[in-house]
């Protein structure tokens, strides 16, 4: 359709409009002064930077509206640097815009494609090279070379093997054993059932084994526990899970079954546990069933009871792996 119609024509590059600075030396002079001022400002910035580095102590604070109480040393050091750098740039650009030639020039493009002769010649050279090397005629060489190259690719993979041990069954195990005492985190004090009021929570770790003086992060990453006390009648659990609680105290792994963040936002009113990372929400009264968010599994529950003195202990180890899912997990 449009080929019958006459298109609007390209009027060509418009005539160059001269700047005031090109026509009038007064304006050029003014631009020169402006550029100089910008560069001088930059120099002042560096002076400010030096002064704050050398002379301003780091313990002086000043109140600045919107920003609050600010550290003068840090602020002036940064502002000095910002001014020093920014105004070099501003000066250069102002100079380029006002005093350097501003007439647009036209350059021609060339086609990237090589011409047909060159292409043909290239193909010929490659072919000739390949045939003089005998790539086609000597399949044995080709194949063995392929084999050698392919095999050598295994080297880096093999050498990286010792990056770490094999997981074995480590992912399924925690430090919780039958009879392990529950202790406060931090503080490492044993906890009696009576220590917790209804509505109370406690962050819990297993008691340290003899000879260890602190919890390693690797252990915490699997052992961390959240202890919550409800009224026993508030539970909505089957008989087995109910037997894992003690007088309304229920213990869950604090490591999210989704991606391993610490799930510890317990709402006393709703009895919900929320994970702050991805907002999976678990219902404590129903054995941490997932009621919202991306987690697919409840938090593992630890069976607890008390020893003869009334201190809380683990009835048994976790009956499932804690933390995020992995391939070998069976459910």
């Amino acid at each position: 359709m449009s080929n019958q119609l006459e298109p609007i024509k390209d009027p060509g590059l418009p005539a160059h409009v001269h700047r005031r600075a090109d026509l009038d030396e007064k304006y050029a002079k003014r631009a020169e002064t402006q550029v100089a001022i910008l560069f001088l400002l930059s120099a002042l910035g560096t002076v400010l930077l030096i002064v704050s580095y050398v002379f301003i102590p780091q313990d002086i604070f000043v109140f600045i509206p919107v920003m609050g109480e600010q550290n003068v040393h840090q602020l002036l050091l940064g502002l000095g640097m910002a001014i020093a750098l920014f105004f070099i740039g501003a000066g250069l650009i102002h100079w380029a815009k006002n005093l350097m030639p501003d007439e647009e020039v036209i350059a021609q493009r060339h086609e990237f494609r090589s011409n047909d002769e060159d292409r043909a010649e290239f193909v010929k050279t490659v072919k000739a090279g390949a045939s003089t090397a005998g790539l086609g005629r000597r399949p044995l060489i080709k194949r063995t070379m392929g084999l050698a190259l392919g095999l050598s690719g295994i080297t880096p993979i093999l050498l990286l093997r010792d990056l770490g041990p094999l997981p074995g069954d480590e992912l399924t195990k925690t430090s919780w054993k039958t009879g392990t005492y529950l202790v406060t985190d931090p503080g490492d004090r044993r906890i009696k059932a009576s220590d917790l009021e209804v509505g109370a929570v406690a962050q819990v770790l297993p008691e340290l084994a003899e000879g260890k003086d602190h919890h390693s992060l690797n252990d915490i990453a699997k052992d961390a526990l959240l202890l919550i006390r409800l009224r026993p009648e508030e539970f909505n659990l089957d008989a087995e899970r109910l037997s894992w609680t003690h007088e309304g105290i229920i213990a869950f792994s604090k490591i999210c079954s989704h991606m391993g963040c610490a799930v510890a936002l317990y709402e006393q009113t709703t009895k919900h546990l929320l994970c702050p990372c991805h907002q999976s929400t678990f219902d404590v009264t129903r054995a941490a069933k997932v009621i919202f968010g991306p987690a697919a599994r409840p938090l593992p529950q630890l069976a607890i009871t008390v020893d003869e003195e009334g201190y809380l202990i683990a009835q048994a180890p976790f009956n499932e792996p804690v933390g995020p899912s992995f391939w070998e997990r069976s459910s």
Partner: protein
Amino acid sequence: MTARERVAGNVAGFVDDRTGAAKYLKKSLSKVFPDHWSFLLGEICLYSFIILLASGTFLTFWFDPSMREVVYDGAYVPLQGVEMSAAYASALDISFEVRGGLLMRQIHHWAALIFMVGIVVHLLRVYFTGAFRKPREFNWVIGVGLLTLGIVEGFLGYSLPDDLLSGTGIRIAEAIIQALPVVGSYLSYFAFGGAFPGIAFIPRIYTVHVLLLPGIFLALITVHLMLVWYQKHTQFPGPGRTEKNVVGYPLMPVYMAKAGGFFFIVFGVTAFLGAVASINPIWLYGPYTPGQISAGSQPDWYMGWLDGLVRMAPPLESYIFGYTISWNILIPGLILPGIMFTLLALYPFIESWATGDKREHHLLDRPRNAPNRTALGAMALTFTLVSLINGGNDIIATTFDLTINQMMWFARIGVIVLPPIAFVVTKRICLSLQRADRELVLHGRETGRLVRLPHGEFVEVHEPISAEKAWTLTSHEQLAPLELPEFDQAGVRRPAAIRNKIRNRISRAHAVAVPKATETERKELEGHH
């Protein structure tokens, strides 16, 4: 000839005698660069990268990438006596014991955020103007690679100080690795040198963060720039600008001064942010331990959309023959981003396949003149934006009195419903704008001046637009859709018919346009007036 000129000449001669550089440099110095603000977006990335190298090097002088446990005894009182990793302690020391250390840490982090913002804005400019078309597909692919690597590099940097927030990020990364079918737990044990968090991870990612990835970056950026140099920059349509030329300023001296000046501007702005705005106040987060967490634990923004996707994923896991597949992690964490980045990288090839346009393009499209592409871009942007918003849903919820549950449902539904809406709306807007362009060329600019005609009618006076403007608005070409055979001569569907049918469909969608104004129509209208 002054003495100084003689010295300069001697030095230049000395170098040229040994390298023959003069021949090449002579040409290069008069290389022409078109001037447009949006052509500087890529430079923002380049300069941020240089700032990152410089400030990062500064930080390495004091940073101790070790997970060995130490007891902090530095200047920051609220953490004195606290057990932490040497990495975290040294990051605190940089902040409080090294003068200017905190400033440099903040400049480094702000530069990283701006680097990623720059990449995305630059990518959007290239996409919406069609600058990725032949012959620049390679550069597009390299750019997508840089974006991907930037996300990884940024995440590693966020992880290095070993504060509570970065440890939480690592924990989530570990969960993603662990969720990989078959090899997950093995890969996790290899990456962490055993169980999470172990003591190997931070030293390892440190090497990747300061050596391996910056090296790859440097190589890719070099190729990226060399290709820009060699292929010459694209330019916007306008009078005198054609597919065969490039109109702009020569490198020496104008562009050199401008580009060099812009480097200082970018550095200055980054330093300004580092001076006035706190970023990643690690001393408040405390050291990482897996039993602790802060409300509102988020990644940096360029990972925020991934986190948002993970948040909104449905709680799906399969248990097959005693093995677990975590769809709730794999789909949002790996599969969807994998598909998105692959499509993004292949887009130039997909578009040219669908439109059948295999020619070189050096003149940019105005986004409205490629409605289908623009609408697709708006669709992808909407998807990412909804995900990003969901990544900060808790902060947004508390700020605007919403609930995280509402936000999550908005995102879950919005991420599916809103992108198609964005597509349709954007396409319509583009076509309307084309219509407006057509009106403008044919009828001129509305002056807002009302004139009463002799017979009493009021009309608004239209002022014809300049020849330059008219050309700019009509210089784009409007391709006819493909018409590939869907049947052979015998009337039978060929094996390739379905593919052809798809191509015809897409190219028809792509060719939808308001016919642009022509000189003929203009003249006809003039006759009427």
